[in-house]
Every structure is written in structure tokens, then in C-alpha cells.
């Protein structure tokens, strides 16, 4: 195993331009949310307490066998119908990999904060986004090394 250079990502225009002043070449990319990472949510109001809860369906299954049912119309009212949304938030709709001036074509690196979306596994009904991946610099772009067998498994080390 070899230590790989870590390529930083800048997500704000000021940070990108600051890096450019320092000699990095910003490889700017637009964020393209992956459909597979979208979630569904609706909002229910409890008719007895007036408090609201978010749920992804009329019956919500959670970790450790927790099940909540919103099926009883005498108790629950769906006040926001189910809709699909992208759950991750970023500072901007674009970001840039900060490419160092001495990078060599064919160099394998770590993209510490991925701009592109990759599926990182499922945790109950929630699909997780991969945060970092290895990649190879082609001279113009990073060819990302994504292996669903190792990168799509919801595992962390540290």
C-alpha cells in the first residue's frame, strides 16, 4: 500500500480563486445529483398533539426494529404529501478539484471531497453518498476509481 497525494476540493468561489493564486489549477465541475441518492419524505401532523413528524412512507421502519405507523387517519394527517428530494447540501452548485502544478499524468491520488456523486451503500432505506475515492490524473481530468464492492458498503475507518 502506498501513500497517495490528497487532492483538495474548493466549494466556494473565493476559495477556488485563492487556490489559483497559490498556483493550483482549479478543475471546475458542476454538481450533478445522482437520482439514486434522492430520498422521499412527507410530513404528518398528529391530530392529538399538533406536533409534526417526517416519514418516508405511511409505515416507517427504523434501525433496531423501530416501526412507526401513520396509517390511522384518526391520529395522523398527511400535511405535506410525499416528495422526492436530494438530501445533501453544498456551498455552491459547482466545485473545483485543486490540481497541483507538479501532478504527473498517470499519478494515483485521493480525491478527498468528491464533487461527483457515487453510491456508497444503503443504510435502511437511506442511500449513502461516497465522500472520497481514489483517482488517476489523465492529464486533463481525474479518472475516478470506483468499485461498488469496496466503495458501496457503508464502512468507515479512522
Amino acid at each position, binding site marked *: 500500500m502506498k501513500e*497517495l497525494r490528497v487532492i483538495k476540493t474548493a466549494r466556494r468561489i473565493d476559495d477556488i480563486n485563492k487556490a489559483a493564486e497559490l498556483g493550483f489549477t482549479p478543475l471546475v465541475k458542476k454538481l450533478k445529483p445522482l437520482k439514486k441518492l434522492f430520498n422521499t419524505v412527507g410530513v404528518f401532523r398528529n391530530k392529538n398533539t399538533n406536533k409534526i413528524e417526517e416519514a418516508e412512507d405511511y409505515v416507517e421502519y427504523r434501525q433496531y426494529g423501530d416501526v412507526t405507523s401513520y396509517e390511522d387517519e384518526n391520529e395522523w394527517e398527511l400535511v405535506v404529501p410525499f416528495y422526492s428530494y436530494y438530501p445533501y447540501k453544498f456551498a455552491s452548485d459547482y466545485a473545483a478539484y485543486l490540481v497541483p502544478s507538479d501532478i504527473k499524468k498517470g499519478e494515483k491520488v485521493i480525491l478527498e471531497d468528491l464533487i461527483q456523486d457515487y453510491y456508497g451503500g444503503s*443504510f435502511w432505506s*437511506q442511500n449513502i453518498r461516497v465522500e472520497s475515492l481514489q483517482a488517476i490524473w489523465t492529464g486533463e481530468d481525474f479518472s475516478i476509481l470506483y468499485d461498488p464492492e469496496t*466503495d458501496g458498503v457503508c464502512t468507515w475507518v*479512522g
Partner: protein
Amino acid sequence: MIFKLATKELFSNKGAFIKKLHCPYHIKWQELDSFKSSAHKTCSLCKKTIYNSTDMNESQVVDLVARDPEACLKIDLNQNNIKTVGVYERT
């Protein structure tokens, strides 16, 4: 134990902070070398043992981190001894 995915922080069931998972090398569990007949693995970059927390109870993890605050853990979201929260940290 409780694992806050958005920040990679591990807490006890009572909410006491145990450690924040961070690997400067962004190592994948599958890349690490296995010990013979051990659930744990070793990292050739930092020469440390990576403890598989799957079969460790909370006391074992707390003791380990108390003895060595830099101890490395492997956490799988779907392991039975950890409750995962803050998957997206929606704002």
C-alpha cells in the same frame, strides 16, 4: 454506541463522546492486511492496528480509546452494536 455519520463521531449510548473517525490516508477496510484468525487488521502506512468494532461492546471501545486516543476503528453502518444518526444533517 451511537455513530453520527455526518461528522464521523462515535458516542456512547449515554451520549458521551468517544472519538472522531479520521484517516489521513483515506484507507478502505478492504485494502488493509488481515491478521491471522483475528477480526482486526493492520495498516502498513501508519503501522497501527485497525480494530473491527463489529464484535466489540461499548466498554471495550471506550477502554481502547482511553488507553490509546489515536486507536483506529472500523465501523460499518449496519453493524448491530451501533445506532447511526445524522445521516444527512438536513438543514
